[in-house]
């Protein structure tokens, strides 16, 4: 599931255009983003505060089992990498 500062309407539009079926959540005040220490102050194109890209695989006990922090925002996590991490869970 995907979290960003985009409001629900923007995410809904994105989902519709791109055909995404997974859950998109909105964190417009970056509260959760801050809770996860992912705030990128002024990182948005208009100087808005946004999340830095990061992925967490969380199990049903809410324990983090895999993380992916890119060093370069242009390099995004690949689906196959995430699947390997997910399959590694017992």
């Amino acid at each position, binding site marked *: *599931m995907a979290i960003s500062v985009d409001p629900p309407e923007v995410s809904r539009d994105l989902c519709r255009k791109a055909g995404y079926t997974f*859950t998109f959540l909105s964190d417009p005040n970056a509260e959760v983003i801050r809770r996860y220490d992912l705030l*990128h102050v002024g*990182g948005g194109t208009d100087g808005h505060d946004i999340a830095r890209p990061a992925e967490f695989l969380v199990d*049903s006990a809410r*324990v983090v089992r895999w993380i992916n922090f890119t060093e370069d925002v242009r390099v995004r996590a690949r689906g196959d990498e995430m699947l390997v991490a997910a399959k590694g869970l017992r």
Partner: protein
Amino acid sequence: MPEMIQSRRNWALWLGLLLALGALLCNAAFFVNPPGQRAIPWLSVLLAGVSLIFMVRGLQRAFGQPRVYGDKILSSILALVSLLLVGVAIFSFFQARAIPASAGAPKVGQRAPDFTLADTSGQSVSMAQLFAPAADDSQVVPPKAVLLIFYRGYW
């Protein structure tokens, strides 16, 4: 006295321009999301560096042997354009890496902070709900894990 000097194309400058273009076009490669893409930023730096080397070589020839390598003005323009392209490529490189350290983010083995946020239909969703089985479909197995993808947004 007959003109014996043969004029030659300043290929070093043109190669420098091509490489500079290559360095900048590396940015486009990211959209394809290929395997090994983590190497692309370094490839762009490499291309930029090699481009600069050829640029300098080309300028040395243009200004050192102007009768062989022709137009100093054209050479300067070529070098300037290449320099601009390289500049943008290098700037992109550093901009893309200007990311906060996020030292406080949950690490493997730690608990992921709980949250409740609105989904695209405006409904509140908590982490517990993501793991709960679907209310009306007892056949569906609840997920063993959830992948949280934080992204930049503002697309």
